[in-house]
């Protein structure tokens, strides 16, 4: 493949950033919801 470096960096940067953001969000969500009683969480 030509321009392999660019394609790789572009794809990895995008998926990596979005994936990390997703992971961080899930983890933060769990930590926070432990401090809040279930009646305040109206989605599960």
């Amino acid at each position, binding site marked *: *493949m*030509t*321009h*392999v470096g*660019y*394609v790789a*960096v*572009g*794809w990895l*940067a*995008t*998926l990596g*950033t*979005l994936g990390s*953001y*997703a992971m961080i*969000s*899930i*983890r*933060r*969500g*769990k930590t*926070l*919801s*432990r*401090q*809040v009683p279930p009646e*305040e*969480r109206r*989605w*599960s």
Partner: protein
Amino acid sequence: MSITSLAADDGTSSRGTRVLGILTLVGTAAVAYLGLVATGPDVIQRDSVRLIYVHVPMVSVMYVPVAICSIASLLWLRKRSDGWDALAVAAAEVATVFVGLGLVTGAIWGRPTWGVYWTWDARLTSTAMLFILLLGYLTMRRLPDERSVRTKRAAVVGLLLIPNAIIVKFSVDWWLTLHQDATITRADAQIEGLQQFTLILSVVVGYLGMAWLMVHRFRIAWLESRIEDRGLDLAIAERRAEGDTLVATGGDQ
């Protein structure tokens, strides 16, 4: 963290987000396969065209959270309920991620395709200004110390995101059509068939992913405001308890 604990019932997940998440993951895998393997290189751009399958979703999807932030800010100013504020900050954060990735992927795509990482064309310039506007909003959400000041001022900045973005886009477009030859403006590659399908699919997956991120981020913001409220309630209860013991022991010193 194990996979099972990720999927466990607590936290900000719900059935809806799990469905959304699975669709996004499957969709991403499909786009990756199609974009990197199944489709062929472009006649002119060769393999760097594969970057449009990450770049275009970013720059197509990014306007929606910006709009949501602006409208949520307006609604917060009208109704003053925490839900709108949580929506505004979630939308702004997600928007910043997408705009930032749009700029980065645009630069990475631009280098092999046009030889430059950056150029002052209308779209890039407007997108860069949008990024700065969003950074201003996020900074406004962090700096003031009092929560009420923070929320109120951030809402004003957020509300102004849409007008500012439109004004910037309009003036930059007008300005640059006066100063740039038409040939320099970025003409999108002529794509058809499987490439076009992959591109459309990537945008759809982009919207799904954005929605997933927004719902989770909104719930996080919501939980944070609940916790802050309870912290205040706790502090008030403690003060009251102090006052009661002072009365019981006979006045304050």
